[in-house]
């Protein structure tokens, strides 16, 4: 039987009840600024950008939410179920379903603090030894023939690198030294892979690569022996470990650090097939030009010779002689004409002079010429014609015959 209560038991609505619980939890200062560590599960990141997950250990589970603004700070950290993490936040109650949950503002892989301290210690040690010295870094050959790969044979990193190499410079010979890239056996295997690759293949450059992962996943690339093996490699090493934001000690010891495996393959092939083809085409054109010019020069020389030959050709000589002959003929004709003209003038002169001396011209002025009939002698003295002589009297026009008395 129910006993009558001494005092009336409070009656609360669900909302009132839940609110009291909420006030109770939110009023506990220890629960408002707390670190909780556990294993991730049920990770969900809907389009709202908020991050929902459950933290659990062997005995219990805790629902957590990380608002979008905080979740954005996680960057490339891959939150997968099973990852052991440390979270910081405060507890609250989500009234609609009456569940308490942790509002997380910081999330990091558990043990990261200790790992980071070890990373810094080792970095300082190796740096002091000069392993990261820029003067140790060797140039990457611009046109490698043999490229060695140290990576997992099953990873995406290998596939990415082979794709890049195939696209950019398929002339290269690739040797894969397979090695686990995470786990306890990874460091020793990576060291052995580097050693064997150098000794047995003699590559022009080595790509040491691994795809993205948590800081623990990449930890083999912070291993002291691996870092030393990279520094001691005969062939220059390009590291491409994790993502852009990940830095490992191998990156410091490598001759060149690439942000990703893909970038490592690109840096290993500075000259691509396309560029080689372009260079080939340039040389081909030069070859064509030289030959065209050589032929043109010879053709020009031939042409010049041909002209010279023509100049001295007999036919041309003949024509020249013909011309000279024509010229002379012309001059001769012209000379002759001039000569005739001159002679005619001279002749006319003499003819005029002769005319002035013509005795008959005197007769026109009334003089007469008298000559003896018997012997034709022209008389200059009267005694040459005794009386009875017959004389001719020549007048300007006509002649008289007279007898002297």
């Amino acid at each position, binding site marked *: 039987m129910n006993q009558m209560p001494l005092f009336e038991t409070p009656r609360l609505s669900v909302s009132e009840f839940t609110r009291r619980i909420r006030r109770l939890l939110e009023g506990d200062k220890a629960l408002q600024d707390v670190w909780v560590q556990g294993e991730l599960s049920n990770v969900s990141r809907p389009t709202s950008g908020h991050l929902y997950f459950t933290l659990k250990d062997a005995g219990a589970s805790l629902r957590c939410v990380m608002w979008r603004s905080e979740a954005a700070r996680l960057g490339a950290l891959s939150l997968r179920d099973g990852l052991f993490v440390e979270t910081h936040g405060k507890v609250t109650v989500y009234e609609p379903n009456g569940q308490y949950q942790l509002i997380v503002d910081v999330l990091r892989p558990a043990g990261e603090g200790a790992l980071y301290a070890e990373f810094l210690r080792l970095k300082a040690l190796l740096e002091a030894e000069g392993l990261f010295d820029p003067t140790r870094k060797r140039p990457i050959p611009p*046109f490698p*023939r043999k490229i060695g790969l140290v990576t997992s*044979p099953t990873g995406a990193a290998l*596939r990415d690198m*082979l794709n890049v*190499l*195939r696209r950019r410079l*398929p*002339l*290269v*010979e*690739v*040797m*894969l*030294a*397979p090695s686990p890239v995470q786990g306890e056996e990874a460091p020793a295997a990576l060291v052995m*892979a580097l050693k*064997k*690759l150098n000794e*047995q*293949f003699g590559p022009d450059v080595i790509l040491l690569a691994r795809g993205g992962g948590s800081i623990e996943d990449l930890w083999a690339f912070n291993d002291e022996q691996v870092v030393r093996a990279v520094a001691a490699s005969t062939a220059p090493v390009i590291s491409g470990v994790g993502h852009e934001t990940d830095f490992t000690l191998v990156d410091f010891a490598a001759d060149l650090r690439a942000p990703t495996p893909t970038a490592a393959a690109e840096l290993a092939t500075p000259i691509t*097939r396309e560029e*080689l*083809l372009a*260079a*080939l085409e340039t*040389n*081909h054109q*030069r*070859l064509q030009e*030289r*030959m065209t010019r*050589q032929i043109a020069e*010879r053709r020009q020389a031939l042409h010049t010779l041909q002209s010279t030959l023509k100049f001295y050709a007999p036919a041309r000589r003949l024509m020249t002689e013909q011309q000279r002959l024509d010229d002379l003929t012309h001059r001769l004709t012209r000379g002759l004409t001039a000569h005739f003209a001159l002679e005619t003038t001279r002749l006319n002169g003499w003819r005029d002079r002769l005319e002035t001396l013509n005795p008959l011209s005197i007769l026109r002025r009334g003089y007469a010429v008298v000559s003896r009939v018997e012997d034709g002698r022209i008389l200059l003295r009267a005694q040459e014609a005794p009386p009875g002589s017959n004389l001719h009297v020549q007048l300007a026009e006509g002649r008289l015959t007279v007898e002297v008395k």
Partner: protein
Amino acid sequence: MTTSKPIEEMTYEEAFAALQAVVTALESESHSLEEALALYERGQALVRHSAALLQQAELRVRQLNGTVFAEES
């Protein structure tokens, strides 16, 4: 200048270096027409060989233990 190695057996670098030598020779030296033509033909053959090497090249991937690396695609 010319190596005795047949062009077909040359690697890309050898062929390209030989091509450069041919072009330079054709540029800077004087040759008989016959020599020039021979150089030119050699140059053409080197261009063809180099281009073929580049265009037909297939990435050769092996694994350190000597086996050909087979990619799962």
